[in-house]
């Protein structure tokens, strides 16, 4: 892969997401200030606010993909003299970087809120482990989602977020109960066994690797087969 090509593509993604970063920063700073002023600042509301800000950063690349497909501008990048693998690599790196704040927050929430809730004491080791599990997993999941956006017709995928929300509502209670029952056992198991860490690491790594492999395959196909629709919006 040509590093100059990757640098240029990453540079474009960074510039496109600069506005998102600023918006996220404003949400975090202004939101915290407003909460302080109205006397509603609590750990819960602050974390919620930071999650919203981090999520808006993470959504930058997927939103750009949708925009490029709808406007037909994806043709610009797909007709550059670069292999589709380079386009995929640059897109996935952008996604991973965008997911960084969200993963860091999630790791913090796991360490300081979830673990104490199930009777375990967090620490730097747990924080790091949580981050190294959540970041690749969140990045890989987002890459998979984005690759579906690249490969398939965006209109046909419009049902996906709605379906996800419905599933979430239906399984929410069940999921919470399952986590409450399963997490303490897993934490205890990890805390008391050295080899369990290796097992956990392998499991935590293999899931994102499989997801990334599928995502890479789909995204490459999507870039190679992309044809702008005649009805694509012209800016």
């Amino acid at each position, binding site marked *: 892969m040509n590093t100059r090509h990757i640098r240029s593509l990453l540079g474009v993604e960074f510039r496109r997401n600069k506005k998102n970063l600023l918006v996220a920063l404003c949400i975090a700073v202004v939101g915290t200030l407003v909460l302080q002023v109205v006397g509603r600042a609590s750990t819960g509301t602050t974390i919620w606010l930071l999650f919203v800000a981090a999520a808006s950063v993470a959504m930058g690349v997927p939103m750009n993909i949708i925009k490029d497909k709808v406007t037909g501008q994806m043709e610009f990048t797909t*007709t550059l003299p670069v292999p589709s693998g380079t386009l995929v690599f640059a897109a996935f790196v952008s996604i991973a970087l965008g997911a960084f704040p969200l993963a860091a927050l999630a790791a913090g929430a796991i360490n300081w809120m979830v673990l104490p809730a199930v009777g375990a004491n967090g620490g730097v080791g747990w924080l790091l482990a949580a981050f190294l599990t959540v970041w690749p997993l969140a990045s890989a999941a987002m890459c998979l989602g984005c690759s579906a956006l690249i490969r398939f017709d965006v209109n046909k995928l419009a049902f996906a977020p709605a379906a996800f929300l419905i599933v979430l509502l239906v399984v929410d209670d069940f999921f919470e109960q399952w986590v409450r029952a399963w997490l303490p056992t897993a934490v205890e198991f990890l805390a008391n066994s050295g080899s369990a860490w290796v097992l956990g690491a392998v499991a935590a790594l293999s899931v994102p690797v499989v997801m990334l492999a599928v995502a890479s395959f789909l995204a490459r196909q999507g870039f190679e087969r992309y044809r702008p629709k005649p009805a694509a919006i012209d800016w």
Partner: protein
Amino acid sequence: MVRLREFSVRYPDFLLEPLDLEFKSSERVAIVGANGAGKSTTLKAIAGRSRHYEGTVEIGGREVRSCLPGIRTEIGFLPERLLGFGWMSVAEHLDFLSNFFPTWDDGYARTLLRRLDLPSSSKVGTLSKGMAVKLSLVAAEAHRPPILILDEPTSGIDPLMRGELLAVINDAASTGRDRLVLFSSHILEDVEQIADRIVMLRKGKLVGDTTVTALRSRDPEAPLSRLLYSALSSDEHTSHP
């Protein structure tokens, strides 16, 4: 240099019948025909912008699809509509592209911008149709490709801008004897100014392939555009004499 063998394209509402054509370096070929004749489809395939065709398109003996995407560095392509990020300035757009073409000549790009009176600080998304075509031409030409392909370069442009563009295209076509220039147009006056060979398409069918000289010899007094019009609308196949 470029050879099409049994080249055909089939869409649900369009069929480009098999074409067998050969273009030599140093030729200036106009592909003419009405809208929907198959001009853009053919040019896109030669430019390595489309894989969806039957038969083969060879450049220097290599099938284009098997050499993608690298072969695109050897082709300058001006598409029907400008491709790029609307938020970039003209200078940023060209700077971005320069990273992908090893033979990109920054000085030449600046010269073309000046000559076409294209402000480098303008945002790509705010350019008028004429300005967008100018930028596309600079982007296609700045890496001095051996094959320059222009898809409807002067369509929908005012006469003044058309004149400027045609002058630049003519100069670009003259630099380097081994350069192939392929362009499509339904403005027959443009063909008269640039081309030395004319390929005529009608409703997805090749109806003529001749030289400007051969066409002129039919009636030396008549304007070429009139001769072309009658050749295009006639049922006879027009070929090299």
